[in-house]
């Protein structure tokens, strides 16, 4: 239990008359790679939004390494070490590739107004550091040669990768990936699987991802949580989930995809 990083205890949220998420609980241990699946509209992204402070739960609690996250603003939660990507890619499209990464490092780097204006030593040193770090990150997905391109000009798959890199630039403990494999073909997905595993190693990450690509999820996740209509209906390892009757029922008609 000393390894428990994220403790989500029966969180719920209501939008008007609709309870989008109802009594959802989840535990993430350090270094874990878990998946959150469920049919469309189940509330998966809503869970992410609750965990990152975009929405406030109407009940329940969220704790990161013992500290309660309820009531904190998204930027405060981000500074505590939770980073995320978005279902609909939210890159800074008109800024350059490297600027997107540098922005990920923004909250960790501090040089004052005066330093900046006078182009002081500290400013120049920090900027150089940041750029070096940013380039290293870009090299992971071979995006370094495109560093001055406009982020929005990248092909879709590379944009998704860039968003992951930007999240990594914040040096998170916990990484939430919202459909990282969306729009990717089989070979790209395989490549992504490798990269995600490597990233976890290299950066000491705990990862929770939402995905619809079942091959991806079953192959890479150690534990899977299943959500349907805002309620968690199952939890366990891939094999357990594949044969779970409730899960199959929820995905009625698409059970071929599960194998």
């Amino acid at each position: 239990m000393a390894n428990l990083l994220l403790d989500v205890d029966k969180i719920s949220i209501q939008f008007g008359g609709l309870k989008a998420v109802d009594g959802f609980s989840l535990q993430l241990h350090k270094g874990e790679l878990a998946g959150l699946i469920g049919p469309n509209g189940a509330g998966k992204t809503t869970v992410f939004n609750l965990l990152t402070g975009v929405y406030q739960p109407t009940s329940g609690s969220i704790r990161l390494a013992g500290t309660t996250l309820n009531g904190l603003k998204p930027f405060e939660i981000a500074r505590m070490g939770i980073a995320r990507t978005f279902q609909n890619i939210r890159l800074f499209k008109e800024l350059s590739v490297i600027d997107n990464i540098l922005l990920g490092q923004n909250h960790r780097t501090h040089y004052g107004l005066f330093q900046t204006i006078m182009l002081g030593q500290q400013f120049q040193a920090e900027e150089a550091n940041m750029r070096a770090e940013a380039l290293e990150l870009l090299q992971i997905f071979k995006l370094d040669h495109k560093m001055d391109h406009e982020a929005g000009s990248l092909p879709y798959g590379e944009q998704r990768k860039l968003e992951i890199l930007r999240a990594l630039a914040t040096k998170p403990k916990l990484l939430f990936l919202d459909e990282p494999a969306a729009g990717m073909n089989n070979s790209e997905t395989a490549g992504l699987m490798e990269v995600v595993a490597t990233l976890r190693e290299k950066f000491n990450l705990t990862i929770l991802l939402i995905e619809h690509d079942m091959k991806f999820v079953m192959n890479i996740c150690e534990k899977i949580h299943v959500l349907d209509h805002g309620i968690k209906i199952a939890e366990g390892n891939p094999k357990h989930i594949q044969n779970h009757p409730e899960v199959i029922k929820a995905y009625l008609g698409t059970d071929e995809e599960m194998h």
Partner: protein
Amino acid sequence: MSEFFQHLINGISMGAIYALVALGYTMVYGILQFINFAHADIYMVGAFVAFFSARFFQLSEHPHWSWLFIILAISTAACALLGFAIEKIAYRPLRKSPKLNILITAIGVSLFLEYAGQIVFGVDPKLFPPLMPESTLFSIGGVDVMSLDVIILGISVFSMIGLHWLVYHSKLGKAMRAVSQNSTVAAMLGIHIDRVISFTFIVGSALAGIAAILVGMRYPKIEPMMGMLMGTKAFVAAVLGGIGSLPGAVLGGMIMGLSEEMVVGYLESTYRDALSFGILIIILIFKPTGLLGSRKVEKV
């Protein structure tokens, strides 16, 4: 006590007029999520069209209540046409652009109408002719209720009822509500988005045209900048009631009219114009969705 009743009547009268203009703002906001800065200037044009029509027909020589409706029709039609034209020429091409751009355009249209108005209509104020004979209908609590106030209230209420019927009991109204809730799906269901938006502008502007006549009857001095003051107050009324909400606009308008009257009556009249900005700031800081508005959750 009778003073209080006088203020009450004035407040209700003005409040109804603010409500009519506020409805225009709120309708456009509900359907496009944008504040039509030029709305109040359309109202101003209506007043001047009415003024020149009245002069053309030499109405001041024989005021008769039937003229009222003719001038009303002319003003309403002029405003409706202007609103339609502005939407088609200046706003429609920008529908896919960032919100900021259309806001800037709206400011541009507003300025254009004001300053072109100054050149075309002349800078100095004009006196709106009386459109119908003035008479005291009855007395309440020692205060004379003028036929003017009754007519203003009557026309306003009639317009609002008409609007209500249009929005909630007609096919076009249903389309308007659909587009304001989800324009993508509405389009997929075969609703002609452009036509619905045009229609919204037409109706909103028509209401402004009606308001222009009512104001002209109550405060006969009109000038090209009159839109600015009315615009601020009506806009605040719309925000107060909850922008996007039709009943909110009416409620906001009435509150605006009544509170303004009370401030003028019992406090300093110089604070009257600052009142609207004060109310605006308080509302936006404490309850930005307004009294009857609902919070729109942004999808992340």
